[in-house]
């Protein structure tokens, strides 16, 4: 007897967000990336169309990340004092299709870079690479509210993804995204309600839902990845059942979360039983990303080129329809 897969029917699908703008669209990108749009739970091709692949974004900083593990040095030490060179290396050597530029230097406790300096870094990176760009502030609201509007203005037309907006601080970034036509990252603290509330607040300022990307806040494997997983699962189920205020694609800072865990960083000398440190870290990052992709993450922000490659391969494999999906 032939096997008939039980199929769930969904009322709706995840919204699509386009990142970047080509010359014709008023920007300078070589290509754009569309995320979201899935009409089924992750990779269940037989239940609904998954039109867009999840994307691996590579994370770069505007200042040298002195606290990163030594294992990153062989890859980035030659470029991490220069964000332009760093971005180029990610694209040219490591095949990055999307770059996340974290303006860490704007932090008053780091370099206290001025909004103008930050805007210049963004422009320089845009000039150097052709991929769409995500730009995130230093995380201190007072400073970010000065920096990000200027970045938005300087990069008008490029259709950036700018972050982050939080429930306590979303207005100035939302306004900047409206005026200069960018997308926004709406970040909520592993809370489905606040996630939705923030999306409502942003759309009530008239930024359309298809310009919002959810950052549900995730954690690394062993540090509560399952909390993020279940929030994302709820968001996805909500989206497929027609809740448009949960229907945005999602982004997660996998590299940041993983590379602050003990398991990724502890030396092999201290924990001989844990295996070689760098490989362990790479696998930790890749495993975390893999789990989150299964929960419906659309953009995984990663650090280690080898972990990124593993995940790209994993995505390729998951995006192939099987006989089962026919």
């Amino acid at each position, binding site marked *: 007897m032939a096997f008939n897969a039980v199929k769930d029917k969904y009322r709706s699908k995840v919204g699509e967000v386009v990142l970047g703008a080509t010359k014709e669209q008023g920007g300078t990108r070589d290509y754009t990336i569309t995320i979201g749009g899935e009409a089924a739970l992750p990779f269940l091709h037989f239940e609904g169309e998954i039109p867009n692949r999840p994307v691996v974004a590579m994370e770069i900083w505007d200042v040298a990340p002195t606290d990163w593990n030594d294992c990153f040095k062989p890859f980035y030490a030659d470029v991490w004092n220069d964000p332009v060179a760093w971005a180029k290396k990610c694209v040219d050597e490591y095949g990055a299709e999307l770059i996340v530029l974290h303006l860490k230097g704007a932090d008053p406790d780091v370099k206290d870079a001025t909004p103008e300096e930050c805007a210049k870094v963004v422009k320089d990176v845009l000039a150097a690479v052709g991929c769409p760009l995500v730009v995130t502030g230093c995380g201190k609201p007072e400073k970010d509210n000065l920096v990000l509007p200027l970045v938005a203005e300087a990069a008008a037309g490029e259709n950036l993804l700018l972050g982050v907006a939080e*429930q*306590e601080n979303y*207005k100035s970034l939302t306004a900047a995204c409206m005026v200069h036509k960018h997308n926004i990252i709406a970040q909520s603290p592993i*809370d*489905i*309600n*606040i996630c*939705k*509330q923030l999306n*409502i*607040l942003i759309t*009530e300022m008239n930024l359309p839902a298809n310009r919002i990307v959810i950052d549900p806040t995730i954690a690394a494997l062993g540090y509560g990845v399952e909390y993020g997983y279940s929030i994302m699962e709820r968001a996805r189920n909500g989206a497929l059942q027609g809740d448009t205020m949960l229907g945005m694609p999602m982004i997660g800072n996998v590299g940041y979360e993983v590379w602050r865990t003990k398991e990724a960083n502890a030396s092999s000398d201290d924990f001989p039983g844990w295996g070689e440190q760098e490989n362990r870290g790479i696998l930790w990052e890749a495993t975390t990303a893999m789990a989150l992709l299964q929960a419906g993450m659309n953009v995984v922000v990663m650090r280690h080129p080898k972990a990124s490659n593993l995940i790209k391969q994993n995505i390729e494999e998951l995006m192939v329809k099987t006989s089962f999906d026919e």
Partner: protein
Amino acid sequence: MDKISVRFLPDNLIANVEHGTSLLLAAASVGLELKSNCGGDGTCGRCLVKVQEGRPNVKSEGSISLKAKQSGLVLACQAAAVENLVVDIPQESRLDEHQVLLEEKDILVEKDDFLAAGYSLNPLCRKIKLTLSEPSLTENISDFSRLQSAIRNEIDCHDVRIGLSMLKGLAEVLRTGDWRVTVTVAQLNGCAEIINVESGHTDKPAYGLAVDIGTTTVAAYLLDLESGVTLCQKGTYNKQSTYGDDVITRMIHASVPKGLRELHTAIILTINQLIVELLSQSDISSDDIHLAMVAGNTTMTHLFLELTPRYIRLEPYIPLASFVPLVKAEELGLKINPAAQVACFPSVASYVGGDIVSGALITNMAKREEITLLIDIGTNGEMVLGNEDWLISVSCSAGPAFEGGGITFGMRAMKGAIEHVSIDPETFEVEVTTIGNVKATGICGSGLIDCLAKFHRAGIIDRAGKLQADINTSRMRQGDDGWEFVLVWSDEADSADIVVTENDIKNLMRAKGAVYAGIRSMLKAVQLEEEMIDKVLIAGGFGNYINIRDAVAIGLFPDLPPEKYTFIGNSSVKGARLALLSQEAYSEAQELGKKITYLELSNGNDFMDEFVSALFLPHTDMSLFPSLAANND
């Protein structure tokens, strides 16, 4: 050590207190009540007094405003009397007794309550005229047995009891009246207690006292138990307020040495004062009151009986007793007939008390097919949902925000409280209406609900309750605790500028979120949808003034048609009254105490989830408020 005398002005009352007593307690000892939300912790900054003569020992400045400090005021709770003092109490610091709003207007509907609840007059206590057969050498049973058997012929109860003091006088009473006597018998819990025996036949009826002990206010009715008529009613503040505004602070106070005693004494004093007022309006004496029925939340019932509420506060939240025994008035110090019996409504759980059982009784929800939701918003939000087949209750810690607690200019619903607000969305100009149409001194619950609704409509706050600092009006300004919105400028108010701060809004959002989340949790537990609720009854003094449309607009109450809502006022005291007048109602109350299922919200994550989704205007899930979505279009 010698007592210290503190003379309070302008009342010119002198308190003689122990060395080191705080001025707050000294004032309380002579019946002067000051505003004291924090219960003497020095954190609410409201019990301001001016010392005219002598110097108190000021423990700490506490939370006192710079302006008050500069004008020489101190916090009464932080100032200890160490020498003779003369202290002036400014009007703003007083809890004004005469401003308690009672629902006098409601009194006329009592007969309907009665019929609506389907009970007939069959009071718990009544007077029986008896003519006993004279004893003789052949018919020689004792006086008491003689009385007992005569009573047994009149009432359906075998177990007839008498107290020792009553028994001592019995022989003479019987003989003085030539074996004709009038006995007052209270029949409760399957046993008839002789409260009084009078010589001869009198026509005076038995009287009863129905009391609702609220955390904030206490209400009492004086009833003629024979006709069922309410002779008069009175309300006042619970004197326990001196020891804190909410049940938690009171419970904490109950665990300090002498604290339980103080709280017990305070509530007895409060009730005795009400009794004096009630009696002054009628021609009966305190001895004529033979039965008292008390309904209060679990903690209040404990404190009334001087039972420790300590374990109610601590996980797993266990009350000492849900069903409490009958006690004699003299044991409690209640100034009614010393032999009078005092009965308390049973509690369901630590935070669902006799007041709720009383409310469920008067609404008759346990006898109807339709599904009723009873919401009692006091210091806690307590709710019962159900019908004749099932009843479920929850208590959610809404906090005292709707009673004015934790709100910068919050106050109870009394004269001068802003109860209605309207705001021009273009100019942000505000118009307010106060209770008694006097200059505003603060904002009460209904005004606060109005504020949330109108602030959101005018764009002063966003859906998350955040003040929008960028709106163009001088009313939006940076205060001591961040942004604040000036509701009433000081020149139009009876105080400083009346403001609503970001923190106030947070507290209100939490309070409304907790109530709504409690309703959702109950519905979820019984797998019902909101629209299946046939009737919503709003109880509590605060409930008299809420605007339903605003309350729905902020997501406090479910989005149901307004005709499903009814305000029932103080259902607790009405239930107590009903139980006094009907044996059946009293038994039903005992049954309800056992029948209502308690849903503990702190168990599991569902409530938290519901709560966070309710921290939004009106709610994260807008589909729960379809009428609002329709209005927006």
